[in-house]
């Protein structure tokens, strides 16, 4: 039964490899570091926020506010860089503090008012989007020279592909996320919360601190994602990143994380992001398919993975029941 823990992750990996093989067999050009580099760059902001979402979902919660926080970060940066002479690095620091505090506040409300994360982060979604509307409703370009310096940074991969700075940031966030989830006390607490809140409490997990920490982390990563998004688009727009929370949740689920919390891997989320990127790339290569096929395919994948999870749980429940029956029978025959 030990392996069933890894089965969803394995299924995701198989889907990714199969998908890639299909893509390459149709468009041989897709097998290049150029395409891989673009895929990572295009999905960098989504990947970063999906890491935060993984922690939230692992703990049995959900964070609907990330898309709005990304938009807020972009608008805040563009307005502050336009109206003041603050260096972008200082602006980054300010905005990260703001979004982390925002996430922590939501975590606090969820824990202390004992309300479903869904509705609390829905309020957060409205609030963050509303504040960015108040800052500006126009798309504000970012023209600071430091931005172009950052955008020029890349590592040339063999085959001509470019690993841009924002792609590197995403990869670093995933690496740190994996370490945080698997190798630290905080990570263990997160899994414990998602597994069973009451048991976690009884075992001495600091539920208040962990809950606030999880949403603060998600807020921080949404802020970082917003910075990356502003680097990617060179602008801040209050209508940007609408629905990113859904893409992030989809990536987490496709990555094999159980939505009830407690089971899953940050690495799976990375595969989920890659699968979404693969679908988009295929559509771009094809040229005749419309982009709305992305949504339909992602919906189908979501359904497939959720059904797979249900099937696995059903099977493990059944085998547990069989084992009980078997041991009861053994006892009966022994007597």
């Amino acid at each position, binding site marked *: 039964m030990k392996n069933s823990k890894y089965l969803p992750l394995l299924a995701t990996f198989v889907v990714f490899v199969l998908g890639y093989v299909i893509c390459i067999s149709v468009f041989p050009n897709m097998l290049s570091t150029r395409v891989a580099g673009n895929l990572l760059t295009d999905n960098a902001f989504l990947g970063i926020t999906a890491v935060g979402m993984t922690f939230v979902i692992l703990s049995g919660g959900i964070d609907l506010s990330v898309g709005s926080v990304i938009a807020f970060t972009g608008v805040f940066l563009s307005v502050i860089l336009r109206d003041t002479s603050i260096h972008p690095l200082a602006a980054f620091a300010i905005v990260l503090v703001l979004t982390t505090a925002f996430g922590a506040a939501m975590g606090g409300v969820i824990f202390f008012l004992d309300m479903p994360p*869904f*509705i609390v982060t829905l309020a957060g979604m409205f609030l963050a989007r509303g504040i960015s509307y108040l800052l500006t409703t126009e798309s504000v370009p970012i023209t600071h020279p430091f931005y172009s310096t950052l955008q020029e940074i890349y590592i040339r991969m063999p085959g001509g592909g470019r690993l841009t700075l924002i792609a590197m940031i995403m990869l670093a966030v995933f690496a740190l996320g994996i370490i945080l989830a698997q190798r630290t006390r905080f990570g263990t607490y997160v899994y414990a919360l998602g597994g069973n809140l009451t048991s976690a409490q009884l075992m001495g997990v600091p539920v208040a601190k962990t809950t606030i920490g999880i949403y603060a982390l998600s807020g921080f990563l949404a802020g970082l994602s917003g910075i990356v998004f502003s680097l990617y688009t060179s602008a801040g727009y209050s209508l940007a990143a609408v629905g990113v929370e859904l893409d992030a949740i989809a990536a987490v689920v496709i990555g094999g994380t159980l939505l009830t919390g407690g089971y899953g891997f940050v690495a799976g989320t990375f595969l989920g992001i890659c699968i979404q990127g693969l679908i988009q790339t295929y559509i771009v290569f094809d040229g005749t398919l419309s982009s*709305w096929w992305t949504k339909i395919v992602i919906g189908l994948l979501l359904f497939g993975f959720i059904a797979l999870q249900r099937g696995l749980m059903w099977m493990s429940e059944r085998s547990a029941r069989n084992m009980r029956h078997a041991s009861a029978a053994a006892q009966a025959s022994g007597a």
Partner: protein
Amino acid sequence: MAVPTIIRERTPQLIVLAVILALNAIISPGFFSIEIQNDRLYGSLIDVLNRGAPVTLLAIGMTLVIATKGIDLSVGAVMAIVGAVAASLITSGYSLPATLAGALFVGLACGIWNGALVALLDIQPIIATLILMVAGRGIAQLITEGVILTFNDKPELIFVGSGSFLSLPMPVIIWVVVAILAILVVRRSALGLLIEAIGVNRRASTLSGVNSRVILLAVYAVSGLCAATAGVIAAADIKGADANNAGLWLEMDAILAVVIGGTSLLGGRFSLVGSLMGAMIIQSLNTGILMAGFPPEFNLIIKAAIILIILIVQSPASQAAMANFRANRQTVAIKTESREHAAR
């Protein structure tokens, strides 16, 4: 007590609604004036009732879903799908009854899909309905083939969105009829009680003989039907089907309306009348903000503030504090009473 229970229970909502309407009247003095032109009632108040139709319809279905401890995130996407279906049916020459039947059938099918995931596969409602929320707009695009399907030359379908009957706008009549039907069916039979039982404890109600699967399926089907009706009205109103923007974020407004109306998100207790008031509160807020000349962006911040207030009021923590306070007061009252007795 002379005050009917329904009014007594919904006093907070009535007060909020009255305050917002009064504020609206201060902002625009002619707010309450209603006049008849071309056999149809006109006025800001009628406009609130009319514009609020989609959210009200969604809120009716959402109330029942939330009462079972569920949630339906897909209603906005279902509106888009149904609008696309209605537009494509009417433009390909089908009659109005056939178009409406087809549109409602598609909504029903969407609802049954959600219900099957929740009731038969035991998937969490948020996730089950998320699938259709993500894929739904893609499906709507597939139907409209990526363009905004317009039907300017189909007055019979446009009538559903902007016509009038008995001098009331059609959307108002539709939502009032649907609301009355829903309230009668749910409250004049045991259905409402069974729905609440599932919301309190699905396992316990299944064990005590409630067919929870069928009821869950039915509740999501009703939500799909309500979303379909709202989708037809929204499409008929703009004389076209916009797969990207029809019903966008309306699921959030509908959830908000239900929560404002006093239905707990934790399931088990619901009030359809409360949700209707919630929808009207949201719509009069929208109208008020527009009339006051504020940018519509203020809406979101006000909504966030409302959710926060409701969260604080509804939270188990503050409920416990309230109960404590009441209990204390009662013991004090009893003590003084017994003291008075003793004095006598």
